[in-house]
């Protein structure tokens, strides 16, 4: 058992998986330059010392290297491809959406694409092109699975699951959750470290977790918003409202059963997300809940989200853009009235 932040947990996971299975390799920009940073957020720091032939530093060419990873995966390797900021996935959409996601289906089930894509998300003072919660944009995509680990425990467990899976899995990580010390200290960084068991555990695909039990309202959120929801739940508790906080961990497939159990109990549900409301993750979750469990609902579900704007830079506007703990508290109270 040891205490690790998300960046360290991921690094540990990658190291273990590479040691366990020589088909695993990492590919991305600046991931393994001696004297460098181990990618944009230190996750792969130093791994080139252990695996000099399996840490591939690429040119700045996201579409190219995602396609290369896809080709290598089809030939039986197990690439872990990362982009420095999830926003850069826009450059690689063709390969990810048209090839990685579809190769298996198009081949009638013959091809396998055992590939992991890692991408940091979150609104973090860098302006609108380094801020997008790109998991939202992949919700309509068929053929990939999507994970959003909010704790170091989950990050490691999900990483293991993803590397071992025969299917393509995208892991969206949050910049403010990697760790709150050293090179990763950021204004707003949040401690998401966990006690990591020594055993080789995994986090099963599509399994949500109830982070806090409650009986009055169900709050669903991932990544940073999950942590804000937990803080809001604490405050609500003080005000006599018992909130249950669900961390889906996987957006695709989505664990409807865990939500159903909760909604049966609370009858009220809200989603919280960091990107714009329009076409957001909350839309899918709310629409599904309404279709599937309307009998259990005492009030219409609400979506708390960012406004429908591009992400602004200046701190006061940025703060306004991202749902804050107080916003969650207020919305929950409004919903219960």
């Amino acid at each position, binding site marked *: 058992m040891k205490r690790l932040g998300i960046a360290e947990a991921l690094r540990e996971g990658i190291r273990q998986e590479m040691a366990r299975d020589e088909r695993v*390799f990492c590919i991305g920009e600046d991931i393994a330059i001696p004297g460098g940073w181990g990618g944009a957020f230190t996750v792969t720091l130093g791994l080139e010392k252990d695996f000099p*032939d*399996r840490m*591939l530093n*690429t*040119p700045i*060419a996201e*579409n*190219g*290297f*995602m*396609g*290369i*990873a*896809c*080709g*290598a*995966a*089809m*030939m*039986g*390797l197990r690439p872990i491809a990362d982009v420095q900021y999830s926003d850069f996935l826009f450059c690689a959409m*063709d*390969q990810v959406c*048209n*090839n990685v996601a579809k*190769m*298996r*289906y*198009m*081949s*009638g*089930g*013959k*091809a*396998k694409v*055992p590939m992991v894509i890692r991408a940091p998300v979150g609104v973090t003072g860098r302006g609108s092109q380094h801020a997008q919660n790109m998991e939202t944009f992949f919700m309509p995509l*068929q*053929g990939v*699975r999507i994970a959003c680990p909010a704790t170091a425990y989950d990050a490691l467990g999900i990483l293991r699951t993803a590397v071992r*899976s*025969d*299917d393509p899995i995208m892991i969206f990580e949050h910049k403010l959750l990697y760790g709150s010390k050293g090179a990763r200290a950021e204004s707003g960084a949040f401690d998401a470290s966990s006690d990591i068991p020594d055993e080789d555990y995994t986090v099963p*695909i*599509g399994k949500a977790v109830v982070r806090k039990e409650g009986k009055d309202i169900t709050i669903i959120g991932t990544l940073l918003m999950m942590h804000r929801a937990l803080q809001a739940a604490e405050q609500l508790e003080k005000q006599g409202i018992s909130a249950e906080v669900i961390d889906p961990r996987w957006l695709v*497939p989505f664990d409807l059963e865990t939500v159903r159990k909760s909604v049966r109990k609370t009858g009220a549900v809200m989603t919280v997300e960091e990107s714009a409301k329009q076409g957001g993750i909350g839309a899918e979750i709310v629409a599904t809940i309404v279709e599937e469990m309307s009998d259990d609902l005492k009030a219409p579900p609400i979506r708390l989200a960012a406004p429908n704007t591009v992400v602004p830079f200046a701190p006061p506007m940025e703060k306004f853009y991202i749902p804050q703990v107080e916003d969650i508290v207020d919305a929950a109270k409004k919903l219960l009235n």
Partner: protein
Amino acid sequence: MSDNKYSLEFLLEMYRKMVLIRQFEDRVKFLFLEGIMPGTIHQCQGQEASAVGVCMALNEDDVITSTHRPHGHAIAKGVSIQSMMDELFGKITGCCKGKGGSMHIGDLDKGMIPAVAIVGGNIPLATGAALAFKMRKEKRVAVSFMGDGATNEGAFHEAVNMGAIWNLPVLYVVENNLYGASTPVGMVVRTKNISDRAAIYDIPGVTVDGNDPIAVYEAAQEAVARARRGEGPTLLELMTYRITGHSRRDPALYQPKDEKQRAKENEPIGRFRKYLVGNDLTSADVLDKIDAEIEEEIEKVVVQAQKAADPKPEDALEDMFVESI
């Protein structure tokens, strides 16, 4: 054409494969125009020599990737024409179980990744396959077939650059048929040869008569050998011409008549026949017999494909993931 260093068997195999492609394509075109076949098609009549010449330089366990125009490559690489015809008819027995269709023909067991219909999109895949071979220290080679038009996509630049800097065993084979869809190559590329593009990646670039299967074969062989020796990629430009429309029902009015005429005279199968017969390597009868055998073969394939079972509607739900949850 080259001198007499190939066995007759080899040359007839070359001929047979080209004719197989031609007849397959002609028959498919007919089925389309008759309205019997669903979907859309992009065909390769006139470009058979490049597919055949390159693939005959490959081993069975080498891998190719192809484009929206994949039938010739698939046949040359050994994908069963029955499974292809079945796929075009959308049958469950198709090489992609009816899920792919013409533009995604492929068969990994035969070393062909499902074709990619996004222009340029297959180039990184072949590069990635080559990366896998290199990392595993296998002596296999990957080939990316592409059109002239594809070399203007960013994917080309990104993938070829990585193939080059990592010295991967990959061939970038450009079938320059002078048009990207209806667009003449001279309108969108300023240099004389597309193979000139190799220079900026510091890899060899070669332009070859793509309608001469032996010339193609020899250039491919050299590039394959180089790749197997660990010396990295080659950009092979094969000059050819599409003597059919770009896709279903295209009358190709953008191609000047005299150019079309010259191209017909220069099409690889007629030329190869002339070469074989003219040099007394074989007789027209022998070749005609091959033609007739293939005709029969294809006839059978069509009959069987039409009889094959459709997928069930709900089969659409299968083959999404390896692991079901």
